[in-house]
């Protein structure tokens, strides 16, 4: 009996393995997508799929560098306020219709229209009137975008934004097929209806399981598409994902559990890809209440008492970089750091203790503080670790509060109960502004209550500066002000961690962590490729 069962298992197992192979790329994709509507999507899992389904005016190569997409070329006016795009005449929707400038006008207006319910309309802010439309103060058709003819598109900005091409590669600026959207309303994204213009089109979506894409034969560059199909698996449980990769069921994983990096390095070293990722992990401090309002010394003391090297090398050990500034390293921008960053551990702790005493606390009268984080194993471990450091170095008594994501967000946004809270930010495009702007007094992400006119002005000045070099210098000044005031304690800059099947060609590590499936193919045994991306401007 028992032997029979084992035999049966064996047979089923063999059969299932034969099914998995072939010309399908199998990608672990974290959470199940919420929607495949480019105008309304917000999370990373959605955008991974959308980059395969759709193509914006600008797109990305395997290294995450911006390259012409539907627009084959573009030019900016000398004042940096008008961009003109020449669209590719060969660009086609998956149903054969040509992709026109009018489609983009329709789609971008749709994204900023509050009635669409888009969460990312704000990203188009540099475009004339975008902010007003999102706020309901102007009509969507006043958006600064116009089609001169079917293949010429003009975008007007209300301020210089040299990073505009980066925004246009974001899903919020992807085109949608106007007549399908008009016909089906929100339902246009369902399998069988969705018309897309990227290298792939939607075949099937089994919720909580997978999204299946197949080759879009109408795509203008279809000849270079490697895989016939791409299967995005919902892999919420990162530990199961790792096991599935080891069982040969996935070609790319969404991430690697940081607690297992050491083991993975030893056993699956060839498949492990770790690269810097455009994001910062930090603790926000609530400046609207005690103990952190009006107490810069205390904030700095807490920031200095954290040993970031332990966090990154002993706990996470997945290539994260200790953060002493707020903006992750990126080409051309030399971020600021707080001055004590150059001290060694002992000096830093000494300074921290001095500042702590100076702000009126001591072992007899310790600071009691609540640290809020959202339920997730890495956040938990980091919170426990930081709490231990504060306790061991300064004698701070920390109470850990763990809340589930949606509750956590509400608590954080209310700014009433929080004292210290976990936060993180991933850049939408490669520019310091996407990070620095979230701590301005007007930004929706600013849950610290930090409202400094000096900082706001410094950033505003940088935002109006047309010259790229001068602009970066101004942004750097703003970051320095931020680190002086310290409304947040940066902990580390993220890294992206993936396991990639060594037989997969065309996969490149990059800081955006964007990996379009169209660049990948099963590697021919002889194929040799350059392993690293060189950062271009």
């Amino acid at each position, binding site marked *: 009996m028992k032997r029979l069962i084992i035999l049966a*298992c*064996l047979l*089923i*197992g063999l*059969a*299932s*393995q034969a*099914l*998995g192979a072939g010309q399908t790329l199998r990608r672990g994709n974290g959470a*199940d997508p*919420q*929607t495949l*509507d480019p105008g*309304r999507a*917000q999370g990373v899992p959605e955008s991974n799929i959308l980059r395969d389904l759709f193509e914006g005016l600008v797109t990305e190569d395997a290294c995450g560098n911006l390259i012409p997409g539907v627009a084959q070329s573009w030019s900016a006016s000398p004042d940096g306020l008008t961009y003109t795009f020449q669209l590719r005449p060969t660009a086609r929707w998956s149903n054969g219709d040509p992709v026109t400038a009018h489609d983009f006008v329709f789609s971008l207006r749709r994204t900023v229209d*509050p*009635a*669409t*319910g*888009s*969460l990312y*309309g*704000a990203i188009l802010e540099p475009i004339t009137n975008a902010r007003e439309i*999102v*706020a*309901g103060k102007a009509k969507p058709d006043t958006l600064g975008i116009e089609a001169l003819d079917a293949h010429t598109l003009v975008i007007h900005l209300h301020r210089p934004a040299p990073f505009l091409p980066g925004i246009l590669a974001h899903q919020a600026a992807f085109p949608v097929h106007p007549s399908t959207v008009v016909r089906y309303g*929100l*339902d246009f*994204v*369902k399998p069988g209806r969705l018309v897309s213009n990227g290298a792939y089109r939607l075949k099937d979506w*089994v*919720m*909580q*399981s*997978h999204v299946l894409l197949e080759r879009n034969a109408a795509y203008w560059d279809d000849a270079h598409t490697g895989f016939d199909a791409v299967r995005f*698996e*919902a*892999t*919420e*449980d990162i*530990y*199961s994902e790792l*096991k*599935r990769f*080891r*069982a*040969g*069921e996935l070609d790319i994983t969404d991430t690697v559990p940081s607690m297992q990096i050491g083991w993975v390095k030893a056993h699956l070293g060839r498949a492990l890809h770790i690269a810097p990722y455009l994001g910062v992990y930090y603790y926000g401090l609530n400046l609207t209440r005690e103990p952190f309002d009006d107490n810069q010394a205390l904030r700095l003391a807490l920031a200095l008492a954290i040993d970031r090297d332990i966090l990154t090398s002993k706990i996470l050990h997945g290539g994260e970089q200790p953060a002493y500034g707020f903006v992750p390293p990126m080409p051309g921008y030399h971020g600021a750091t707080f001055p004590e960053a150059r001290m060694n551990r002992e000096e830093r702790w000494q300074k921290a203790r001095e500042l702590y005493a100076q702000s009126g606390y001591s072992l007899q009268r310790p600071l009691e503080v609540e640290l809020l984080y959202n339920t997730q194993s890495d956040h938990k471990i980091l919170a426990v670790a930081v709490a231990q450091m504060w306790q061991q170095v300064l004698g701070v008594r920390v109470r850990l509060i763990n809340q*589930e*994501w*949606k*509750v*956590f*967000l*509400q*608590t954080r*946004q209310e700014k009433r109960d929080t004292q210290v809270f976990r936060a993180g930010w991933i850049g939408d495009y490669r520019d310091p502004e996407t990070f620095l702007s979230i701590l301005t007094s007007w930004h*929706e*992400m600013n849950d610290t209550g930090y409202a400094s006119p000096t900082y706001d002005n410094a950033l505003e000045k940088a935002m109006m500066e047309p010259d790229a070099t001068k602009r970066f210098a101004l942004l750097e000044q703003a970051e320095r002000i931020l680190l002086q005031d310290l409304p947040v304690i940066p902990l580390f800059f993220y890294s992206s961690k993936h396991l990639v099947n060594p037989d997969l060609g065309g996969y490149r590590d990059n800081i955006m962590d964007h990996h379009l499936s169209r660049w990948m193919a099963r590697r021919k045994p002889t194929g040799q490729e350059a392993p690293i991306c060189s950062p271009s401007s």
Partner: protein
Amino acid sequence: MLSLILRRLLQAIPTLFLLITISFAMVRAAPGGPFSTERALPPEVERALQARYHLDEPLPQQYLRYLGSVVRGDLGPSFRYEEYSVNDLIAQGIPVTARLGLFAMALALLVGIGLGIAAAWWHHSTVDRLFMLAAVTGISVPSFVLAPLFILLFAVLWHWLPAGGYAPGTIAPMVLPVLALALPQMAYIARLTRGAMLEVLRSPFIRTARAKGLGMRLILLRHALRPALIPVLSYAGPALAGLLSGSVVVEQIFGLPGIGRFFIQGALNRDYTLVMGVTILAGVVIILMNLLVDLAYMALDPRLGARG
């Protein structure tokens, strides 16, 4: 029999009403809303979303609206999967969870009853002791410890079975989840069967049968099995409904797109309608299972029929 069914269905109405009311109250009292995002929504956008889901109406009106649509069999639109209705999601999840639960229960019943009979047959022997030790151990090891162990052994080390995922129409991805779900149940059923069997074997009518010189096998299968199955049955009904919540963990670990996973995701994402829909579904399943158990009782023991 028909009257029993009818009466039960009538009794189910207040239960379901209570169920809907409790879950509505609970879901609405919860902090955090379905549209809470890290980047606070522009007020205009939030207003548009609220209006789309009628969240701008006063609560009592929303409650009545929901009650009305449930009566019509419509569980409302999902908040998380913006283009889909809760009916769509449940229709997609039911086959997965049902297959998982039914296979697991069938396996548990088949093997569990078999082991229980064997243990009772060889009462006080080494076989009995061994089986029962295994059974108590089986009860003590929860499925969330078994599942990762199975994945490690059968999928990662030996490559016999997939570690997770779902492919409609294939059996392979279901084997490990079914096993993980079935084993603790199997252990419990084996114990239950053994106990009931021993009790029956000691009863006078079996002793009479034995005195008549009937063979042991005949006694076991013809006379003892039926009464011995009654406690197993009364356990199996609610247990099957209980598998629904058990599959929450198993579906999570194996990445199966079933009801349990929708429930957890719904709760985490404040998908009000999805959470309420799954809860109502779970209530309906329990009611149906209880009815089924009663019917099976009648079939197994006609005397119970009169009492109804």
